């Protein structure tokens, strides 16, 4: 990182109360306050949010796509976790 390279931050925005924060994109900033300002200026020009989170991109721990099969495939065949797996006669109510 050169002296003028500002680190990258990921931006998460809550569109309105009742919703969770969603990833919007990234911005560069020298410090956290600036990161919030830049996120506000860039991502909420059209009333897109009521709350902003910023986090340094390097702080995010991500799963490796190479592990996807072992991480996510095992869940695919456990269909008994889903309610539609169970056959209940139509005339049984409230279940």
């Amino acid at each position: 990182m050169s002296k003028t390279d500002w680190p990258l931050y990921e931006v998460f925005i809550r569109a309105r109360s009742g919703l969770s924060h969603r990833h919007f994109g990234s911005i560069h900033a020298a410090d956290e306050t600036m990161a919030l300002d830049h996120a506000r200026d860039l991502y909420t020009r059209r009333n897109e949010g009521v709350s902003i989170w910023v986090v340094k991109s390097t702080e995010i721990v991500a799963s490796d796509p190479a592990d996807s099969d072992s991480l996510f495939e095992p869940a695919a065949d456990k269909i008994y976790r889903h309610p539609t797996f169970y056959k209940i006669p139509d005339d049984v109510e409230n279940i």
Partner: protein
Amino acid sequence: MYTQGLDQKQKKSAADPADTPGRLAAFQARIDADEKIEPKDWMPSGYRKTLIRQMSQHAHSEIVGMLPEGNWITRAPTLRRKAILLAKVQDEAGHGLYIYGATETLGVSRDNLVADLLSGKAKYSSIFNYPTISWADIGTIGWLVDGAAIMNQIPLCRCSYGPYARAMVRVCKEESFHQRQGYEIMLELCRGTDEQKRMAQGALDRWWWPSLMMFGPSDKTSEHSAQSMAWKIKRISNDELRQKFVDVTVPQAEYLGLKMPDEDLVFDQKTGHYRFGEIDWEEFWEVLKGNGKCNRERLEARNSAHDKGRWVREAASAYAEKQAARDAA
């Protein structure tokens, strides 16, 4: 937008040994199944390179594009127009930032991309090397240049690379007002005084052909189109998009009472399309090479901003370091 014209410049590079036939086939299968490719997924090095080049050119174009329009912010004729133009130019900065951000997910840093722009190594859309010399140019840029851009960008919303596609969705949504405000400026001028009408016609005369050039060289000469189409980075050919643009724009000019600067322009009843004259490709290549009216000024302006801002960026980094040290103590 602003990228198709430039995608034939890539030199053939040696094949990457990691691009094994098996991987390439699996990758192509994902593309063919309309799956989105995400940053950490494996991708052929050519796919990554093509994207980096196209996306960074796109981002650079948004940023350089701020200059010709920014040229009129302080001179906008009414406060309403001033506010609209400011908001629009600010959007361009935002779009540049969205796209730089998406490009960074491919493992390049914005600083390096910007350095390539400033050194003249990277390209940006030639359209911004034309000067804005009257207020009607601002109307025309919105109407024609943004109109061409939207036509280019809508298919990019379905681009196979997830971050680019998502950035384009946001860009398209935000840009929908850009073209309309431009056409509104033209409407007002064309309903106005003789001098205003002259201003409008003059702007159309200067911007029409460069707008057509924005779609890039003819399909006959654009080498990389086939690969980009197969990878679903590009989804519609240059000539197809250009034709579509002409077809929708000519009636809009007629509505304004303006005359297209093309003697060969004629509606072909049989095909249902307009036939138009030969584009001056020599001018296109010259401007691309750096020989346009504003090439030097545009790059000088960005370089000057970058150089004059260095002490500011350094100060912010130094302060952040000091703060971090204080927090740690």
